[in-house]
């Protein structure tokens, strides 16, 4: 790799591409790109194993670190879900499991999957890897802070995992951690467990803020010449908007968490009213449990979109590349992402219709929640309209995308049930809710993650993943996951409440036993299928087909680094210059069915490019 590009700190205005623009001007230069306004970034290059791979400042390595650690926590979350399903489907085989264990597994599974797996993976993993490459930057703007961000995440995960080993075990308060029960005896892990959970979350938020500032400022300030905001790939738009949401939403979790820690340790009463327990009045009084719920969901609902928006963005890019067609309605897609992001701050109390808050809130939050369905539906239409008259490669990446569309539409529509306050009342706190949010923010984003892994693995490793193993992985995961969550909605219709260790012999749910067994079998299978991917990755790293440059014939910048995989600094001696949006696929008149973002108009002057 070239380590000396920093030596040629040319102010780009003087470089050859732009000189002609200032010329006599009889014919305006169609390749003109505004000159750079700032000097190039100085980067610290690691020289030892430690600085290159451990305390590394390269966003790509940090992205992979995030990815691996998030995957590790995800596997823990997966194993916990197996244990839960064992208890629900085959309680006679789960004799070792007490109700305490079960609630601890439920809690840790939920928190791990939402925060430490999905959020860390999308923003920390894909964000770090893709933002500099897709925007044409050499790295994140604050590489050192970026490194610290990952290590804060690492410490947060360690603290979380440590809670498995403290007296009383991890918290079993449910992932929503509602007080008063979260910090009172009667809930497992109400001592050390809950404190470690809250400390871990606080560390996560601090670390995440460091990363998030990087993502935002890099997108805003570090784009290469010609990369206007409306030429950004939708992946970047998704991650960027999700990061803004995270910056605004996580503080609510932070203060909620800190106050709950104070209630636990110092005996303050932010969320604790007068409480009678075992015949004695506790030394609390005057606090409001519902206040915590407002704080939690003010974070918790945008959190759903912190996971969803990057998935929306990434899947748009994958569909476009593999359907060989421009994403349909790019501007609408961008505005839909921004609108969903904005609206997501006005819907939080739809999680609280039956929480005991003033019921008149229901009118407002049902309306805002259903309004958000409009931009979301527009995104779905645009994905399928991108397929229309495309030239669709039915490869593994496309399969994951199609799986995403199907599961997302399914989960989105059940959201219309739960968002519409009246319909929510009978379904709230039942398995319908579990089925809904796993379909829409578990399975659907997971489909995108998997598609993205198959899509970008060649860039990260230089080798292709096996398509054959990939197809097995996809079909088992997709069909299995769908058969877990689709029937589960019907348990909710029966009225089976969530977070029940055991149903006993409730007269109207005895018929659900058979379904629970089936769901558990499917869950074991889907979990096991994920090891196909791990095997595929390990095998392909050694023996996979060499990818070469740009194996998918994509347009966006990350495929145009001088070396594959890209090295530190990404672009060798010269930053790329961008002349068009990343979706010029199958342009009439062009020789090939794609025109990379770096191709100047003069080279494709006889094509009928509509949008640049």
């Amino acid at each position, binding site marked *: 790799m070239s380590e000396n590009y920093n030596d040629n700190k040319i102010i780009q205005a003087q470089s050859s591409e732009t000189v002609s623009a200032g010329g006599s001007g009889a014919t305006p230069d169609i390749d003109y790109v505004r000159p750079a306004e700032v000097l190039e970034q100085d980067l610290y290059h690691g020289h030892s194993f430690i600085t290159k791979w451990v305390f590394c400042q390269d966003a790509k390595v940090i992205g992979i670190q995030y990815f691996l650690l998030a995957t590790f926590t995800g596997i823990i979350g997966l194993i916990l879900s197996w244990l839960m399903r064992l208890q629900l489907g085959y309680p006679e085989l789960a004799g070792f499991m007490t109700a305490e264990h079960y*609630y601890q597994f439920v809690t840790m599974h939920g928190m791990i999957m939402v925060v430490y797996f999905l959020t860390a993976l999308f923003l920390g993993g894909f964000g770090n890897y893709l933002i500099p490459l897709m925007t044409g930057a050499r790295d994140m703007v604050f590489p050192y802070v970026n490194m610290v961000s990952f290590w804060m995440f690492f410490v947060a995960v360690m603290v979380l995992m440590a809670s498995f080993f403290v007296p009383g075990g991890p918290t*079993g308060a449910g992932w929503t951690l*509602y007080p008063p*029960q979260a910090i*009172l005896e*009667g809930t497992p892990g109400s001592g050390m467990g809950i404190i470690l959970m809250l400390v871990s979350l606080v560390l996560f938020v601090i670390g995440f803020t460091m990363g998030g500032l990087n993502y935002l400022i890099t997108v805003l300030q570090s784009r290469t010449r010609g990369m206007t905001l409306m030429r950004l790939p939708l992946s970047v738009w998704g991650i960027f908007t999700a990061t803004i949401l995270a910056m605004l939403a996580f503080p609510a979790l932070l203060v909620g968490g800190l106050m709950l820690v104070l209630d636990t340790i110092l005996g303050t009463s932010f969320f604790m*009213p007068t409480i*009678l*327990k075992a015949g004695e009045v506790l030394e609390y009084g005057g606090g409001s*449990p519902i206040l915590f719920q407002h704080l939690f969901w003010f974070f918790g609902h945008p959190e759903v979109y912190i996971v969803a928006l990057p998935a929306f963005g990434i899947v748009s890019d994958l569909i476009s590349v593999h*359907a060989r067609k*421009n994403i*349909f*309605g790019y501007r*609408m897609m961008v505005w839909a992402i921004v609108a969903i992001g904005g609206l997501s701050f006005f819907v939080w109390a739809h999680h609280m219709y*039956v*929480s*005991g808050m003033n*019921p008149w809130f229901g009118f407002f939050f*049902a*309306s805002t929640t*259903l*309004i958000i*369905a*409009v931009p979301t*539906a*527009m995104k779905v239409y645009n994905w399928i309209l991108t*397929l*229309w008259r*495309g*030239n669709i490669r*039915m490869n593994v990446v496309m399969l994951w995308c*199609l799986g995403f*569309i199907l599961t997302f539409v399914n989960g989105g*529509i059940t959201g*219309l*049930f739960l968002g*519409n*306050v*009246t319909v929510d*009342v*009978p379904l709230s*706190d039942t398995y319908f809710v579990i089925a809904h949010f796993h379909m829409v923010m578990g399975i659907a984003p997971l489909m995108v993650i998997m598609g993205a892994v198959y899509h970008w693995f060649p860039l990260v490793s230089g080798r292709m993943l096996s398509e054959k193993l990939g197809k097995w992985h996809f*079909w088992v995961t997709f*069909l299995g996951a769908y058969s877990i969550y*689709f*029937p589960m909605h019907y348990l909710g219709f029966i*009225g089976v*409440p969530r*977070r*029940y260790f*055991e*149903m006993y012999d*409730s*007269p109207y749910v005895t018929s659900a036993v058979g*379904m629970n067994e089936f769901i558990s079998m499917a869950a074991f299978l889907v979990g096991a299928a994920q090891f196909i991917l791990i095997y595929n990755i390990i095998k392909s790293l050694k023996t996979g087909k060499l990818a070469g440059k740009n194996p998918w014939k994509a347009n966006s910048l990350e495929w145009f680094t001088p070396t594959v995989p890209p090295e530190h600094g990404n672009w060798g001696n010269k930053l790329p210059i961008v002349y068009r949006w990343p979706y010029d696929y*199958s*342009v009439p008149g062009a020789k090939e069915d794609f025109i990379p973002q770096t191709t100047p108009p003069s080279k494709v002057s006889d094509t009928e490019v*509509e*949008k640049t």
Partner: protein
Amino acid sequence: MHAGIIFFLVVLGSILFHIFTPWYWTDIASNWGSMDDTITLTFWVGGVVFITVCLFMIYCVFKFSYKEERRAEYKPEDNKLEKILTIATTLGVIALLAPGLIIWNQFVNVPKNAIEIDVMAWQWGWQYRLPGEDGKLGNTKVVNINDNNPFGIILDDPNGKDDVLIQSEEINLQNNRPVKILLRSVDVLHNWYVPQFRAKMDAVPGVVTFYWFEPNKVGEYEVLCAEYCGVGHYAMRGSVLVKDEQDYKNWLQEQETFSELVAKQKKIEFSETKLAKK
């Protein structure tokens, strides 16, 4: 096999599952049939959208699968189509939301003739209190709760003296008479939920929450706690007996009132003098 066929079978399977499922809602036993109607409406609108989108997608992957010599269409935007889709979606959303809000309006407005029932929850159990002949419940305080005053009724409150106390997880309701469930908790969140009545609401320590329904089928129903309340959550059950008016009144007469309890225990006294001064 073409992937599109499998996707088609998934959609078809979903429809068939919905039509033939033996798992569906438990027979309703309250006035909230309108909630079931909104579910059905949402199913129709949502189902049509789901099926249409998926079939369109499946058609595309059959019709436009990759051919070396073919080129995709190049059409970045279509303002007219996007506008039509936006308007159609907005109309669909309004069609779902409007009935929902109308029924919610009924849900938050309790009928005047509803009997108030104080449902008191703790880890892990329920007990109930009904107004006496005055039709009013006495006010309560958590700190007043003890063996002699199991509901924590404020002794100064004359409304509380004739309150009917039911120190049992089982409550009787009168058929076809609306009830306003007043929920309170002495420790953590709970939720008094009977699937057959459809409605539910959290009991929150520190405040009194409410909801209402009108049972319309005589029978026995299981009460489930629907808000996670610690390790005994799954075992926190109760039961409701819905009875005809005469049976209900007979049952009610057998129950003890607060003043009867006080008289029996002889441990606390009502502060009559204080009231007289007022």
